């Protein structure tokens, strides 16, 4: 890989999962791929953390997991956003923008 991968910024995994799922329901690896692709391989998701994160979100009622058959006739778990999850995503997004905007302003004033 050309660019070095970085671990996710602390506390953003949930946000990234929710965002990925907002387009369409997908399974675990799909989420990994999507985060990697969209971030142009800057961020790398640890599969263990991802599965734990999905489980956490499912327990919180933000996503819903459904078993579906894959092309190879295997069971795979597809996750989709719930209404509550969608609301949470909006909230988290605006929150993130507010914070990152603040950080950006701070960095600019520094230079």
């Amino acid at each position: 890989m050309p660019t070095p991968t970085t671990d996710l910024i602390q506390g953003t995994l949930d946000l990234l999962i929710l965002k990925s799922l907002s387009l369409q329901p997908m399974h675990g690896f799909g989420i990994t791929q999507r985060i990697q692709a969209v971030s142009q391989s800057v961020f790398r998701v640890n599969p263990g953390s991802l599965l734990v994160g999905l489980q956490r979100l499912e327990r919180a009622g933000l996503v819903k997991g459904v078993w579906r058959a894959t092309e190879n006739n295997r069971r795979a778990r597809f996750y989709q956003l719930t209404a509550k999850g969608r609301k949470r995503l909006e909230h988290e997004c605006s929150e993130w923008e507010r914070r990152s905007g603040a950080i950006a302003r701070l960095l600019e004033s520094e230079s």
Partner: protein
Amino acid sequence: MPSPWRAVVIGFRRLFRRSAAARDLDDEVESYLEAARDAYRKAGLTPEDAARASRVELGSLTAVKDQVRMSGWESVVDATWRDVQYAARRLRRSPGFTVAAFLVLALGIGANVAIFSIVNALLIRPLPVEAPEELVFIDRATSTFTCCTVREANAYDAATDIFRGVATFRSQTSTLGVGPDAMEALGESVSTNYFGVLGLRPRLGRAFSTIDDVPGATPVVIISERLWRSRFDADPNVLGRRLRLASRDMVDSGWLYTVVGVMDKAFSGLDDPWRSTEFWVPRSQRQRERDQLNDADRLLPDREASAGHLVARLQRHVPAARAQAFVNTTHPAFGGPSLNNRRPSLDNSLNPADRLLAVRTSRRITLPMDSRGRIAPERLAAALMALAGLVLALGVTNLAGVTIARGIVRQPELTLRVTLGATRGRVARQLAIEGLLLSTSAAMGGVLLSRWLVTAFLRNLPARSFTAAFASIDVPMDVRVCGVAVVTAIATGLIVGLAPVRRISSGNLLASLGHASDVSPRRVRARLRYWIVLPQVAACVGLLLGAGIAVRALIAVATVDLGYKQEQAAMVQWAGRRFGVAPGASAQGSHEADTARQRQFNRRVLELAASSPELVAAGLTDALPTEAGRAGVINPARFAVSAGPIDVATAQITQGYFDAIGVRVLLGRGIDARDTLQSPAIAIVSESVAARLWPGRSAIGQSIGFHRGSREPDWLEVIGVVNDVRLPLSEGEPQPVVYVAMNQENALLRRSTMFLVARGKASGRDVASTLRSIVWHADPEMEIAKSQTLQSVIDDVRYARHFAVALLASSGVCGLLLAGLGLYALVSHSVAQRMRELAIRAALGAGRIEIMNLVVHEGITVAAIGSVVGLLLAFIGMHIVSHQVFAIPAVDLTTALIVIAIVAVVVVLAAVIPARRAARADPMTILRWQ
């Protein structure tokens, strides 16, 4: 926010459908892997490369699954459950340790819970009344004499800006019923607002009301639940049935009272918390009874006016201090305006300090063992709890010591687990669970044991006659007791379990694995040995010393020379003043006739006793040397000598009394046929009176004057000196007594009760029944107030002391058991740890004797240092207790030596037994085994 409900449901599904959950997780991870492989293949990798890349991507499958599995709350439950199973397995694998630890903890916790439930039942539990914090008690500040007249009580009751209500109560022992069914019971005569002020309602029937105060009202009684069950067979229709009450104090022939209520068993009266009150009667009715008896009224005007103790409920937001200020300004003793036209003349006979009134926020419990009220119950409770805590602490430190020692043995295992990836927390949790498993099961055993201990303790108290009274006290298993059991169990479990954890991290894996049991360097081992065994020895010595002293005090009290002989002797008591006094029939002027009749009865009884073949000697007295009044004196009276007045005890006796009770005449003579109504009035004094009044001179022929109020003293001639008597609770001080002749009694006070004391040839019990038949023979109608052997009279008085000492001694015995067990385990364990060293020494040619010497030497060193420290601690502890709680007899050399000898034997035995094994065994076996 996580929705907790969904998390719980999912968690439970995973816990209980374990295989389905595992399959789901497997499938999810597998499908992840597959999706990754597909993705890489699509990106153009060969199947092999794609498989490898996806593997790399995912990392260790097991680690991922583990990570997921560990994330939910159920994983904690799951792991804990595994830990419990593992701990149970481990405990099963070393049954010796498990059984010993279980026993030590169960005994420690059981003793603790038992002592706490007794202390709780007797000393701590708040009064079972409504809002007990609003109640105050008004009493004399320094003495236990009751404080107020009826009129004063009523005046306080009317002060509604301070008090919501003021009630009076006074305890009295009465005889219930007649004939063979008669029994003595403790009751209270109370004001009719008593239950209202306390906020209590009877479980059946009604409380008293003002109609019961109306002159001519039917006499009514409220009985205790216990009495209701025992005497009325829990009859639901008990209301309206009648109960005959004859008061010992008030001297009447008994009155019929109608039962109007049954009080719940939770409430057992206010006066003596150590005995339960069985009935309550309105004070006004008792008063009326006495007015009808007439006689009593004339003789004791001061007590007549006294209402008893006062209990008051404060108005909301009125602090006790304001009530005190109010009492100060209104009570005549402070110069305030009198609430009463007539100042109580009792006040005149008291010291100024004794006249002060005190408003106390809590019931002041006067412990029966301590009639002068010097022991604060809270302090006694604290002392007993501290003792129980010490016993438990011994057990716990023992176990902690042993587990630390075991921890050293287990260290390779623990270190290995840490090295294999277990976190320290996880290992600690596992050890804590092991400790908790042990301690909670031991606590359950301990709670069961404590019930048994309480029952056994109450049943086996030395004074049997008091046990009945005590058995009426409920020792309940309340929330507080359970709380104590739970908290001790958790604390001990954690201490015992976690003791070895501290040592894990410092462990060096190679060293641990390489030299199985020789992991602790010599220095650490020695430190361990000393820091664990030494305090054990010290605490053991201290506890044993305490127990030894308690037992010795018990023996000292039991064996103190009372100055008389209670064996083969008994007494019977009747109401002296009932003679010829029919209720309502007594007229002024019949007094002389009554006295004559009484004299005749006395003479008749004495004649019958003299002719009885079963009796050796018999005599009458109006005061027994067994029970002191509240002031600590048997029957206080003031006598005059030329030097001024002296306060002593006094008793009126007849010829034969000294022989009957076993008091010896030392000088002069006792009362005999020469002393009649016409002959000069005489007195006999006890040794201490003679020594105090006429030191160095003969008491015979001296004069002593009896004071009655302000009148000129009646002068009596001293004709004899007898030995001193002591109260059953005293270890030393004799009671100074002046005896006067009863048949000259019209010169002196008339007392309300009379005792016939006799000594027989057979047991005291037989003597008692002989005496009863004599009294009934002389007057078939006579009601006997009390008929007991002298021994049981003394036991009745001593019960509380026995109780306290028995508590101390049993804690001591528990302590000894625990300490002995623990000491043995520790010392033998620490010797066992040296096995390797000893074996090498043996292999190098050391003889058995030398090896034994080595071990025994160490044992003796530990025992010696520990004993010295223990003695010091014990001295300091007892000094504190003596000053803060109650006087403990000084430590004597014999007790100290016995204690040290016991401890030394235990320590040396514990050292020698494993050492013998070491010396005997084949060195090679030990070295290889280790």
